[in-house]
């Protein structure tokens, strides 16, 4: 016991000390900078408030992004320039083609299913009795890490040989329905879709909560007026509810596209990217840190970024429009 605390107590001490130092340094800077007056006051305030964030972003995101772009044109050990060969390899290699195919599958299906299901639930839940209990149950998986989710779902997808008892829910259900289950996670391309189910399970709650808030913001008088005009059910939804939440729907959809592209943990924890389930973000990690080919890894990161660019342009377009209206 004592050796345990000898190892672990200093870590907690380090944490509290770091937080205390951080806050103390900030207070001192605030105190000193607050003394300034006259013309210097504004520039000093801007420097103190914005400086730390800009410095961290420069070294944490902007600089590294530029360096990754350069690395993607270099060889495995980053010594020599190799032109576009990392990119041509990525788009011509036989096994990488499966990775790209899977990534496309993920982008095509998961964001729209997750957001659509979230919208359906948000609409159905609205003004239901015990709404918050149902919401909490559906939202709960969002708090579970993708690693935890993959382990959780192992008890759904687990498979045992025909002469043994099936302890996986899906295998057991299949056997009760009268056909012999297969090893789900080894069956291509079914396994990729089974991993998508884990993502959808995890993220639908988030989409639902945001869309539900948007639906509650639709003014009641608008809904009531169109109801008086005889709009019901599907027409009410298509004519009033959906147009009013469309912008939120698209924001959630865009968030899901980005989350899907960055997805790494589910594949890593469930199959390790084996059996034809790998995606770009996972392969990028393997190239860089397992096969030590920084050039190829960087090229994959750049391709990921290019895939996200349309979402970025769309978001900026929307943001600037919103700001000019407001």
């Amino acid at each position, binding site marked *: *016991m004592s050796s*345990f605390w000898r190892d*672990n107590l200093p870590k907690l001490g380090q*944490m509290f000390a*770091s937080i205390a130092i*951080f806050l103390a340094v900030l207070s001192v800077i605030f105190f000193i900078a*607050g003394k300034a*007056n006259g013309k210097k*006051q504004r520039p000093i*305030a*801007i420097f103190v*408030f*914005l400086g730390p*964030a*800009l410095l961290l*972003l420069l*070294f*944490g995101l902007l*600089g590294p992004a530029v360096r*990754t772009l350069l*690395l993607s044109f270099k060889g495995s050990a980053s010594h020599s320039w190799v032109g576009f060969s990392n990119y041509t390899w990525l788009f011509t290699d036989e096994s990488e083609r499966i990775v790209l195919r899977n990534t496309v599958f993920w982008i095509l299906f998961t964001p729209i299913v997750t957001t659509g299901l979230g919208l359906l*639930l948000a609409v*159905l*839940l*609205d003004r*239901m009795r015990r709404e918050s209990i*149902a919401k909490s*149950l*559906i939202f709960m998986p969002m708090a*579970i*890490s993708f*690693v*935890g989710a993959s*382990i959780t779902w192992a*008890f759904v997808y687990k498979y045992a040989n025909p002469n043994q008892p099936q*302890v996986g*829910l899906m295998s057991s259900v299949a056997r009760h329905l009268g056909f012999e289950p297969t090893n789900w996670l080894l069956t291509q391309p079914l396994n990729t879709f089974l991993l998508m189910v884990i993502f959808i399970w995890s993220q*639908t709650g988030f989409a639902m909560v*945001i869309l539900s808030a*948007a639906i509650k913001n639709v003014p*009641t008088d608008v*809904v009531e007026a169109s109801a008086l005009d005889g709009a019901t059910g599907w027409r*009410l*939804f298509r004519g009033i*509810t959906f147009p009013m939440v469309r912008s939120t729907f698209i*924001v959630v959809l865009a968030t899901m596209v*980005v989350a899907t*592209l*960055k997805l790494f*943990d589910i594949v890593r924890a469930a199959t390790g990217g084996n059996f034809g389930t790998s995606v770009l973000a996972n392969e990028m990690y393997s190239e*860089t840190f397992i096969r030590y080919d*920084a050039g190829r*890894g960087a090229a994959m990161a*750049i391709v990921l*970024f290019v895939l*996200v660019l349309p979402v*970025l342009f769309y*978001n*900026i377009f929307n943001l*600037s429009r919103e700001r000019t209206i407001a």
Partner: protein
Amino acid sequence: MSLLTRNKAPKLADHNAGRQLFGSRWATITVWIIAVVWTIPSLGLFATSFRPKADISANGWWNLFVHPHFTMGNYSAIFSTSTVSGIPNGILPYVINSFVITIPAVIFPITIATMAAYCLAWVKFRGSDAVFYGIFALQIVPIQLALVPLLNLFTTGVHIGHYTLVPGLHIAGKFLGIWVPHTMFALPLAIYLLHNFISSLPRELMEAANVDGASHFVVFRRIVLPLSIPAIAAFTIFQFLWVWNDLLVALTFTGGTEGIDPLNNKLAGLAGTWGSHWELLTSSTFITILVPLAVFFSLQRYFVRGLLAGSVK
């Protein structure tokens, strides 16, 4: 309409598109079916973590509810401070690591982001809008893009030719080496969300304080910080869940240093090495889930309010 029925407001549901679409009863049934289906996987994990090892491989977890046979042995095993299936001290050190990593990695970015958001919203200068758009755009940059160069910065520094721009910081494999990347990666979203909230604070309040001669630092501490609590709480949930559940950043920046590995990473590793120890894996996973769930449910009421300020009209 009499006051009495207004107070009960039972008839509102009649004008709801979704509930009419399916009929009120079918809507309710559909929701509850989905809610139950959504809960089944977690229930399976929870049930398995209380079953003896022999039972887990003998039959499915649902048998626990037919023939109840509980044990707390799995939990006492993973929390024992003697060696558990190859791990000295059980999982407790990793739980501590997770807290030590997560708490500062939430406090640092929120503080820095609130400062930046206040500046961009209320201390405007030429080009401040461009800076805001730039930060907004950085949200989309996949962190995969930044991992290797950032790791190089920590180990060897930044050099242009033979000229050293930044010396090696030597913080890889230390807690600081995880706090810093998490802080960096959190800033774009944090600044964007907090800016939405802070810029919607009443203008009169800020102007009154300026007339009184309060400096920006006083305004920030006395007015902006207390009023921004809902947005700060909402982002706290987000950042806590993200850091606690993160695999990629920790995997990259701990560099396999045993002493600082967070629980989630250990779990990912154990899924391989403990492949046959489902009783330990499930109970450890449940512990990992418990903390973010507690954080979420305690701050839940701020979540939507803080997140959507100024964005949903």
